[in-house]
């Protein structure tokens, strides 16, 4: 019991760290040439100079763009209290202009303790925003517009971007537009009138280097010495961590994982998984945890679907479709698959030959598992068994899956190779 408690506390602590991006990205922002300092420099200049600015943060998903920005904004808010206002929009939510303007107006009202009327029309909102921009400009307050999923705003008529940037040029305002996007060509999506008003400053987020990762692991996993934990436990735990991370097998695991997906977030997931499977009795992490985590993170769903989910009959159908594809039959539907099935049965006298409706049900199961699907969407008027089908699973996956299947008849494998 006495031993259980620190273990859980450790678990909570580390999980809390993993779920808190600002904590994660703090160490990465130390050095002078890091994105953090670049971004901070730009924004702070526009605050101090009282000028407008616009930046794009580009990088793959989960490389910590938003997190770094949050760090910067947080620090700036401490440095310049009550002269920074942050408006956050998300392309997923506010891609259409009306609700984007509404949202901006709403957040401005919340910031400045005005009351916001839902009924306000599009024009009223936009006028209100411009007025606010002017006001803030006069009051030397900087408004930071954070446009997450920037490319979504670039869809459609881009009225939001245009009116924002236009207002920033015309009115004497201080505003920074920070676009965050995982599309590296985000600025190419902009219309000419918008692009001309957009300063093409971009900050690129790259996957972390080896050293960074090591330091990150250190930073994430090691317990602080000065804490309520029993000291022996802390040293023991950190010791364990150290020799795990230094272990070559762990390094290999890490390499294989990073080869698959190299962003920080995926790494966090990996560690999260490993940590959450920590043994609470011993209260220590082990190499096994990471192994299991790796295996559970790297999945091949299609392969699993064949190996674990498919019944023999469904395997038969898959093999029939595969054979039809090998025969270069241009397209096939359920009826032709049934023909193939019948020919197989006639030639080999297999034990499992079932009625058509049973096969049709198996067919539907395969379809809702998305192992197979209809070749084209048109032709709903056609009854299902006549619509052309196609496999969504590669031959190699099929092979592998059937080999590792619990009770796959040998004849099927033979038929697959023929």
């Amino acid at each position, binding site marked *: 019991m006495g031993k259980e408690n620190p273990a*859980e506390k450790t*678990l*909570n602590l580390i*999980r*809390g760290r*993993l*779920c*808190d991006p600002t904590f994660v990205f703090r160490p990465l922002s130390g050095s002078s040439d890091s994105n953090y300092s670049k971004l901070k420099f730009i924004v702070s200049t526009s605050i101090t100079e009282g000028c407008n600015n616009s930046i794009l943060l580009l990088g793959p*998903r*989960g490389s910590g763009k*938003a997190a770094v920005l949050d760090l910067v904004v947080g620090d700036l808010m401490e440095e310049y209290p009550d002269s920074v206002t942050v408006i956050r929009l*998300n392309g*997923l*939510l*506010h891609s259409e202009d009306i*609700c984007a303007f509404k*949202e901006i107006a*709403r957040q401005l009202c919340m910031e400045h303790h005005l009351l916001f009327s839902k009924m306000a029309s599009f024009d009223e909102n936009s006028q209100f925003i411009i007025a606010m921009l002017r006001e803030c400009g006069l009051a030397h307050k900087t408004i930071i517009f954070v446009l*997450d*999923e920037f490319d979504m705003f670039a869809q459609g008529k881009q009225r939001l971007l245009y009116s924002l940037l236009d207002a920033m040029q015309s009115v004497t305002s201080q505003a920074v537009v920070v676009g965050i996007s*995982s599309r590296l060509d985000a600025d190419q999506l902009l219309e000419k009138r918008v692009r001309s008003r957009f300063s093409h400053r971009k900050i690129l987020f790259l996957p972390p280097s080896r050293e960074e990762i090591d330091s990150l692991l250190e930073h994430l996993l090691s317990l602080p010495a000065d804490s309520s934990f029993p000291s022996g436990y802390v040293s023991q735990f950190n010791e364990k961590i150290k020799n795990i991370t230094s272990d070559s097998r762990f390094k290999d695991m890490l390499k294989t994982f990073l080869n698959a997906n190299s962003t920080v*977030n995926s790494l*966090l*997931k990996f560690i*999260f*998984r490993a940590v*959450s*499977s920590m043994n609470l009795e011993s209260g220590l992490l082990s190499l096994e945890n990471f192994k299991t985590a790796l295996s*559970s*993170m790297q*999945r091949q*769903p*299609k392969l*699993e*679907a064949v190996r*674990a*989910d498919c*019944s*023999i*009959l469904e395997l038969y159908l898959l093999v029939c479709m595969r054979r039809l594809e090998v025969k270069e*039959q241009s397209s096939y*539907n359920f*009826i*032709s698959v049934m023909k193939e099935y019948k020919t197989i049965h006639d030639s080999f006298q297999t034990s*499992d030959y*079932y009625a058509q*409706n*049973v096969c049709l*049900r198996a067919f539907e*199961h395969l379809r*809702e*598992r*998305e192992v197979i699907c209809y070749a084209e969407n048109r032709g709903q*008027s*056609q*009854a299902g*068994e*006549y619509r*052309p089908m196609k496999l969504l699973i590669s031959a190699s996956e099929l092979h592998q899956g059937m080999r590792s299947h*619990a009770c796959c008849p040998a004849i099927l494998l033979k038929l697959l190779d023929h």
Partner: protein
Amino acid sequence: MTREESSKVTRRSIRLASSVTDENPEPKPSHPPTVADLTFGEESITLDALLSNFPGRRSQILDLIRLIGPLDSPSLPIMVYGDASTGKTSVALQVFRHLNRPFVYSSCRTCCSPRLLFESILNQLLLHSKCSSNGYASAKRCDKPSDFVNLLRQALSDVMETLGRKSMGKMLYLIVDHVDLIKDWDKGAMILQFLFSLYSVLKMPQLGIILISGLPPDVYYSNMGYTDPLPVYFPEYSEDELRQIFLKTQVNKKLYSAFLDVVLRPFCRVTRRVEELSTTFSSLFRKYCVPLDDLAISPNEDLKRRLYSNLKPHITSSLNEIFRVSSRPHDGDTKGERRQKASYSSENGEELEILDFHMSTSAKYLLIAAFLASRNPATLDASMFDSTGGMDNRKRKRKASEKSMEKKEIAEQEAVMKGPGSFPLERLLAIFQCIASVGDSSFGEEEEEEEATGYDKESNNMMSDILLQVSSLCDANFMIKSGSCPLEGSIRYRSMVSEDLCLKVARSLSFPLSKYLYRR
């Protein structure tokens, strides 16, 4: 006698009503829902009970519990995925019952539109229940993701602080079931993106998100904005896991296991879905127990053998059917008739293939005409339906067989791909006229005595309501209107009748169908 029957029925229903009312009292509108309703409350279960409830799900349950983590520890979004009826939903719910933590559950099966989904989540968070007093309206009206996020933030923070006051932990969990159905909604891709990035959009780590999906994560990759949650995979049950599951609820385990020894293996080759198997097995087991007088006995070897021997035919039959319709004792008269029919059919065979629903003669001819029209190539009509009544299609056949094999192959494939061909109404009517006249002549020589029947069929008056018959055939799905042909604007039809049904109809008219059917 029906009178007294019905009276008896009413009496029973009354008794039932009374018995029910005292056993479950009227809901008191006074009791308002509290935060405690977000948890399972006192009806929590131990880990062992949980594990024993779900044979073959041990690893998944433990994995899920670990990922959810100890009390008050934040967690990343989790996705539970696996095939249908592999216990995803019930495992997830039971896990929460075990942990006894507050959660919100919404199924996209029940909430079949974004608005319903959002509103049901908000209703549960705001402890709002639809009832007649509030006109079955939901607490907040919201159908846009943007509004939803704001409302959700608000509601969450409220609930959190009440939870804090009640010291029920700092975590709330959101379970969204049947996520895969969202793909079929309109603008479903949008909603999916939103759902997957909800965690990062909210930035509230005290909300744990659990998505339950019938499809593996890789089918969602196509959505941009997809950051994959931690996957937990529920594979299909293996054979002996199925055995444990089925044995779990049985009273006489010995007998049932003997039964399972017989049936489980063959059926697992077809499907391993629990619900499909259970419906089949329940009916089979009844048949299995027929010879037994008391169901408590533990069968020995030869008894097993005997039981197996008289189950065997049922097994093969029910392996090949997916839909069984039970009949009622009340339906006795028709059943008796059916038995009688069987006895007759033993005497004269053609009654075996009797048509069990009524069609008017012209409708039957129309059905056959449609079948022929969609099976035969239109170019052959002239030769099929000349005066000699399709005598020369034998020649046609020979010519067809003279075709070189691979061309035939290709033609066949095309035919299979096309399915039943489509035809304009005019062609249908022409064929109908031909075969109807043929059929009547064949009738004519039979009943030359009752020449009075000359009043009915094959008077051109019949044209007047043939179109009506066509429409009623369409209603019965025997014909479907396929898309109108681009060249001339006329609408085209397509016959959906299976060959054996058509043969039945032809037999009931004593119409020589095979003579007119062109076989490649």
